[in-house]
């Protein structure tokens, strides 16, 4: 009997009425992962401990809707006693000695961590192909990328291995793979979820979020993950709210803006057409949709390159081969430990970004590049705020095209930034953004729409997303409904 293809409410009822046990779900998830092994969605499985936890839960009361449900966690999020590699050789054998706050919250709900998902090395990349452990594959077509950097989380959800996964998004790394794999992925407002225990890439941009097969389950998981954390100064102190509360409401009178930049020449026709079709549906149902100009969006990629590479060079300075992780052998002195460990331990993309970042922050360059980028970033944020004075939400495509071939060349250092050109502005402004599937191209590869909200207005985004989901009623299971 299969249970993980059902909705969360139904599974919860089955658990509550003791018709099934958490161990049934855990075993089913591992069976699914085993049969989808060729997707390479996981770096480490947590089998023994997950089974043990599931058995322990049999004696506990099913006290919340997430109780006993399996979840996959991206491998840049610290899990106590469970290997956390960041997709890198340098952390290949790193076992954290504490849980990230998000992991503590998952455990408080008695969810069961099934494994750690594959990803671009240190979340740097857009196709998960920079992973030291090989690229994950797209369940819709195994010759295609599943995007990145949260590619493993996207693949395991798209393949219907389980209901829940966590990703992280510094410049689109939740939304972009969600778009390529036809799932729902949300990057919450910066500060919504504590970053304590997330291995830092670009601290002023990083944010974790839920990746799920549908909108409701996404909102339910977000409910469990948010909150102020004394261990993360940048976590926001907000009143508790139910992110599902507007789901199912109509969208009559909703004001929606479409930035011209997001529908510009860089976007392929097939994606643009699908977004326009969806816009027509929204208008037919009483939403007001306007095309608007948002200043500075065309510069977002440059800002991202400066800020993300700069912050990465500083954050990744901690990997010195001394305190944890890999250390190069046959070194003469401590300077050589640093040089050799980092030279051998980091992959190509990561080294490239650290070097550029080091240059950008060195001496006077910090003023010429980084400070200037922060200035323009501030103006971009103000431009977004202006839009939200007149509109409820912003929409557009998530990606310029559908997923490309795993074998496409990787030698252009600009490629990974170009892939994220439509999703990067959201991180620049700290806004919440999500992907909702809206259709397929002629090869039946998923196309995604991006919904962008004002700060801390995720509930409104879920309202629109759930409306689109219901109206389109797409079959989003690769190979058809199971």
């Amino acid at each position, binding site marked *: 009997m299969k249970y993980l293809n059902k909705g969360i409410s139904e599974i919860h009822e089955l658990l509550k009425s003791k018709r099934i046990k958490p161990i049934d779900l855990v075993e089913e998830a591992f069976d699914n992962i085993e049969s989808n092994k060729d997707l390479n969605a996981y770096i480490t499985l947590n089998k023994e401990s997950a089974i043990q936890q599931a058995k322990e839960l049999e004696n506990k009361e099913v006290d919340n809707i997430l109780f006993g449900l399996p979840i996959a966690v991206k491998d840049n999020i610290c899990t106590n006693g469970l290997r956390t590699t960041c997709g890198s050789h340098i952390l290949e054998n790193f076992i954290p000695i504490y849980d990230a706050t998000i992991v503590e919250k998952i455990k408080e709900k008695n969810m069961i961590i099934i494994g750690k998902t594959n990803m671009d090395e240190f979340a740097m990349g857009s196709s998960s192909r920079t992973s030291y452990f090989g690229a994950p594959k797209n369940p819709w077509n195994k010759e295609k990328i599943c995007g990145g950097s949260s590619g493993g989380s996207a693949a395991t959800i798209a393949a219907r291995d389980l209901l829940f996964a966590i990703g992280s998004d510094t410049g689109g790394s939740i939304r972009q793979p969600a778009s390529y794999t036809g799932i729902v992925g949300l990057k919450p407002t910066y500060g919504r979820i504590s970053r304590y225990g997330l291995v830092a890439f670009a601290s002023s941009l990083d944010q974790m979020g839920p990746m799920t097969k549908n909108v409701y389950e996404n909102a339910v998981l977000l409910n469990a993950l948010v909150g102020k954390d004394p261990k993360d100064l940048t976590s926001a102190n907000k009143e508790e709210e139910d992110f599902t509360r507007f789901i199912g409401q109509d969208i009559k009178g909703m004001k929606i803006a479409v930035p011209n930049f997001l529908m510009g020449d860089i976007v392929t026709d097939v994606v643009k057409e699908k977004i326009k079709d969806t816009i027509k549906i929204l208008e037919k149902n009483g939403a007001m949709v306007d095309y608007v100009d948002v200043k500075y969006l065309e510069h977002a990629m440059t800002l991202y390159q400066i800020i993300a590479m700069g912050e990465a060079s500083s954050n990744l300075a901690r990997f010195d081969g001394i305190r944890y992780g890999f250390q190069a052998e046959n070194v*003469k002195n401590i300077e050589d430990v640093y*040089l050799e460990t980092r030279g051998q331990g980091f992959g190509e993309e990561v080294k490239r970004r650290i070097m*550029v970042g080091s240059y950008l922050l060195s001496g006077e360059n910090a003023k010429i*590049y980084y400070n200037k980028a922060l200035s323009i970033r501030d103006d971009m944020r103000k431009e977004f705020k202006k839009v939200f004075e007149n509109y409820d939400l912003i929409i557009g495509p998530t990606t310029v095209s559908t997923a490309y071939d795993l074998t496409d060349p990787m030698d252009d250092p600009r490629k990974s930034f170009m892939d994220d050109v439509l999703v990067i502005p959201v991180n620049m402004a700290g806004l919440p953004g999500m992907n909702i599937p809206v259709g397929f191209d002629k090869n039946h590869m998923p196309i995604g729409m991006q919904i962008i909200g004002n700060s801390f207005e995720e509930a409104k985004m879920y309202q629109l997303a759930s409306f689109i989901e219901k109206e389109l009623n797409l079959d989003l299971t690769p190979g058809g409904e199971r």
Partner: protein
Amino acid sequence: MEEKLSREELLHVADLARIKLTEEEIEKYQVQLKKLLEDVEKINEVKGYDDEILIACWDDNTKLRKDEEGVMLDPKQVIENAPHHAGNYIEVPVVIGESEGA
């Protein structure tokens, strides 16, 4: 404009980043880094913005937490996470001066 960084320029950024490169990597990165460094120059094309900088992306008044004693990581576990350790110490090679084969 040159299509790649000079060897000296590239080795300078590699040194800033504390990364040892192989000969093959040096050649590849001379070209690739040039492209990225051209990209970031585009920031000079942006006009009209004000001087205010964005340090924090959220509107909350963030306060530092109180400096109070709390639960700390177990020092034994922390030490054991290091690739080389002995007792309560992390072992490192020679820090000052050269020592062949140490």
